[in-house]
């Protein structure tokens, strides 16, 4: 259960992406399978022969066979891309069999990503260990020497789920008529801008069609991480032009668009276009490239996605994926229902937080499922972020003082926290980059990690907090009380906040815990009213996703108004100083960096500043996310990383999950 072992599978997270990477897909996947021999070894060898036997006969699902023979669906060869362009998905354990449903719980359309991530098909996706990207919807790509020109090849004969061919026009359409016009409510992603290292000038890329199956993205300045950023920011760089032409105001006119929106039940075109353009996988009318496509209204009690007959991936045997016929998401109203449903076998593959570990493990046999822990790239599971720009001047001075942070760190017994809060699963360590990720620093996990209340009190005295009130709480020199108010939006952390309060108050620091709902918390963050937060940092690589470690926006508590300053270009907020300013400098350099090495070393510098300052104090190490799969559900990989960047469960390539008979 110790994080180190699992994260050790990261050899180097950011592999160098060179022009040599533009090999074709078959080769790429072959490499991929070689890279993960461990998984095949770990495979349960139950009835492989049987599934093999049933597997060899048919290359497509029985439900499609009957449609083909009825003449309502073209034969398989016509539905798949041309033979060399078919994507062969590496199979985790064994060749599967067709049929069955993936049953899961979701909380309704608001939980769109619960079905969105596992079914997502990105142009480029992260490879299985997260060390780099690999082509997915794209067949292959070439990039020039200084990373300014990316030529991307698509798959010939590939089709949308309604049978219409998928071509470079769909990419161009998305770029020209949707993304750059911001029709679906998102700004043009940062990935499409390149930055001049000297002047800091930002330039938008150009996208041009080369032929039906090739397009080119040209940046003004080098953009080394372009493909990774696209894989994170803009997973899908395409849209079904034939569909969107029928609804976009640009093509049908405002009035008609509104009319169509109303027909769909929407009130206005803005939200209509946002939903259809961005959250398209929830709508049965919209063709997608996903293994399963929406079948009914997501607002119902059960959302059904059914296999895409034109899905463009096969297994190693040439059997068209996905194996399972349907993905059925049942609406739940309370998290306990996911647990109870899983125990009862109602849901055959769901994910849980580590807090449910014991109850799940205890019921593994009875419920006929297995618990597969996926490691998270989190710095900690229990920790505190002190708002460096907190409104109260006394507090701000205090929070910015490194001695205060050290006092708060050593004044808490991490073993107790790890035992009680994480049920002994996490290590009692400092918030730090887990081993195996970019920026890992040896010994950081132990920095200020030993429980030493005397040192903590000495530090606090040293800070001048020697006055005490009648309850023995410390006071500022001016007699005002020192109170840390921790804001949180969930009751799930009650155990931790209770303990934290106890330890802090033992040091004489009065501590309040205020639970507000998420929206309020968000509002409070924007208005700089969150003095402290127990949010955790979980990020694979600061260069991919800087916003929690680099003050670029507002929502991360530790940097508070620094982020506002940066995001408003200095109009509002607090001007970053000292090490925070340095982080921003490094970030600017990353944006304009020419090589991956350069980016990695700059990223490491940013992380080192975090280590030095420990703005984010951690009291317990990361815990895994638990993937709980029915024992019937096969091909669910182990030793994976659970990260939003890797699309969480999507990293397991659910199209090749199957149900044993």
């Amino acid at each position, binding site marked *: 259960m110790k994080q180190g072992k699992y994260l050790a599978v990261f050899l180097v997270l950011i592999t160098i992406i060179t022009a040599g990477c533009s090999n074709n897909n078959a080769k790429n996947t072959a490499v991929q399978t070689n890279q993960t021999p461990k998984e095949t070894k770990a495979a349960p060898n139950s009835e492989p022969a049987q599934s093999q036997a049933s597997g060899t006969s048919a290359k497509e699902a029985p439900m499609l066979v009957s449609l083909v023979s009825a003449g309502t669906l073209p034969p398989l060869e016509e539905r798949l891309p041309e033979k060399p362009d078919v994507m062969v998905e590496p199979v985790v354990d064994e060749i599967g069999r067709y049929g069955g449903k993936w049953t899961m719980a979701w909380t309704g359309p608001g939980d769109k*990503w619960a079905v969105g991530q596992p079914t997502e098909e990105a142009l480029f996706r992260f490879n299985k260990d997260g060390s780099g990207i690999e082509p997915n919807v794209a067949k292959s790509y070439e990039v020039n020497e200084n990373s300014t020109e990316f030529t991307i090849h698509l798959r010939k004969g590939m089709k949308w789920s309604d049978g219409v061919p998928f071509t470079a026009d769909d990419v161009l359409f998305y770029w020209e008529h949707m993304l750059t016009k911001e029709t679906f*409510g998102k700004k043009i992603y940062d990935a499409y801008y390149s930055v001049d290292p000297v002047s800091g000038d930002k330039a938008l890329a150009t996208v041009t069609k080369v032929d039906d199956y090739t397009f080119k993205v040209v940046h003004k300045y080098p953009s080394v991480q372009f493909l990774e950023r696209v894989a994170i920011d803009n997973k899908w760089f395409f849209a079904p032009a034939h569909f969107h032409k029928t609804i976009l105001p640009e093509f049908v006119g405002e009035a008609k668009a509104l009319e169509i929106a109303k027909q769909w039940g929407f009130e206005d075109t803005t939200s209509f276009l946002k939903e259809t353009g961005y959250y398209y996988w929830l709508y049965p009318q919209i063709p997608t490239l996903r293994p399963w496509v929406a079948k009914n209204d997501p607002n119902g009690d*059960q959302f059904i996605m059914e296999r895409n007959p034109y899905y463009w991936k096969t297994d190693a045997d040439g059997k068209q994926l996905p194996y399972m016929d349907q993905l059925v998401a049942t609406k739940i109203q309370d998290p306990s229902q996911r647990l*109870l449903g899983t*125990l009862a076998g109602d849901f055959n593959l769901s994910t849980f937080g580590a807090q449910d570990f014991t109850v799940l493990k205890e019921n593994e046999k009875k419920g006929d499922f297995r618990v597969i822990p996926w490691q998270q790239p989190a710095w900690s599971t229990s920790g505190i972020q002190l708002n460096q720009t907190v409104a109260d001047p006394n507090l701000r001075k205090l929070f910015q003082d490194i001695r205060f942070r050290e006092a708060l760190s050593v004044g808490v017994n991490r073993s107790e926290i790890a035992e009680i809060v994480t049920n002994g699963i996490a290590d009692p360590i400092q918030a730090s980059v887990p081993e195996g990720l970019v920026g890992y620093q040896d010994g950081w996990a132990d920095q200020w990690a030993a429980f030493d209340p005397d040192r903590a009190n000495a530090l606090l005295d040293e800070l001048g907090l020697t006055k005490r009130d009648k309850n023995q709480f410390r006071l500022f020199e001016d007699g005002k009380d020192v109170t840390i108010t921790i804001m949180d939006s969930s009751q799930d952390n009650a155990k931790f906040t209770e303990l934290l309060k106890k330890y802090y108050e033992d040091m004489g620091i009065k501590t309040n815990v205020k639970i507000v*709902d998420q*929206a309020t918390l968000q509002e409070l963050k924007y208005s700089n009213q969150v003095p402290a937060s127990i949010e955790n940092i979980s990020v694979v690589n600061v260069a991919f996703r800087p916003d929690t470690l680099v003050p670029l926006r507002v929502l991360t508590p530790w940097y508070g108004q620094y982020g506002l300053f940066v995001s408003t270009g200095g109009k509002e907020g607090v001007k970053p100083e000292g090490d925070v300013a340095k982080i921003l400098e490094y970030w600017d350099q990353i944006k304009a960096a020419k090589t991956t090495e350069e980016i990695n070393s700059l990223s490491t510098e940013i992380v080192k500043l975090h280590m030095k300052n420990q703005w984010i104090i951690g009291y317990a190490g990361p815990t895994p996310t638990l993937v709980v799969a029915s024992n019937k559900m096969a091909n669910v990989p182990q030793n994976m990383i659970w990260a939003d960047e890797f699309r969480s469960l999507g990293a397991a390539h659910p199209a090749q999950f199957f149900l044993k008979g």
Partner: protein
Amino acid sequence: MLQYTLKRILLAVPVVIFISVIVFYIIQLPPGDYVSNYAAEMSVAGEVFTQEDMAAMRADLGLDRPVFEQYLIWVRDIVVHGDFGFSFNYNKPVMAVIQQYMGLTLTVSLVTMAFQYLVAIPVGIYCAVKQYSAGDYFFSGLSFLGMATPHFLLAVILMFLSYTWFGDPLLGLFSAEYVNAAWSMDKAMDLAKHMVIPVIVIGLSGTADLIRVMRGQMLDELNKPNVVTARAKGLSERKILLKYPTRAALNPIVSTFGWSLTSIFTGSTITAIVLNLPIQGPVMFNALLGQDMYLAGTWLLFMALLTVLGTLISDILLAWLDPKIRTEFRGT
């Protein structure tokens, strides 16, 4: 009678208008709005909303206008177009959302209600006739227990017991395979199976109250001279019981029926959340939580209307049931 009804309805109008104002105000009361809720929810999934994004969204949804303006627009649309607004959360007109849940809500409510009345009335009569018997103590005790146990806990415990004993926690109202299936005998049976826990949980507490009222009323009525008169006429005890005390004791119970109107249309919210019942209660709760204001507002308004209507129905029922009031109306 008609005049009275009209007068009552007329009196209700200002109340409802006033309520609609308060409703709107109350929805606005918690900090944040739908957009910030939405942004917060999406940020959990890794989607980031900047303040500009949120401002743009607010402008789209008309949430950037002053509250009273939003209110006036809302009311204008209701009055002029019969349009109750739009549910941001469902991306559907409010009425469509309400309709979606109405069928099952009514099913659950009416079944639990039928259970309550069918159980409580005979048991109440029994407990009154056999006052202080073992049966009286048993039923009174049971109903008190049902009333004293918090619903949510009872529901969870029953669900868990159902899981440990039968391997099925009976979540929701249908098994997965029947949720979207067409109605059939099997589906109905499945529904019946899933109704057991909600009926027990919601029904038990309501039954407790009803039994108490019925028992008390019956005890009153059983002591009335008209029972003695009936007995002196030579009527059998059963006939006496049914014709005189029961009929009279039912009066207050039937006439308070109107008060249950709101609960019929919402269902029990907390129990429904715990048991994952697809009925109005939780939908509205989430609308309130997520500040899906037109949905929440319409619903609250609807509830207020139902309460006013329920009072009216109660009064009319009372008049209709009580010959004395009835003849007074006939006279005027």
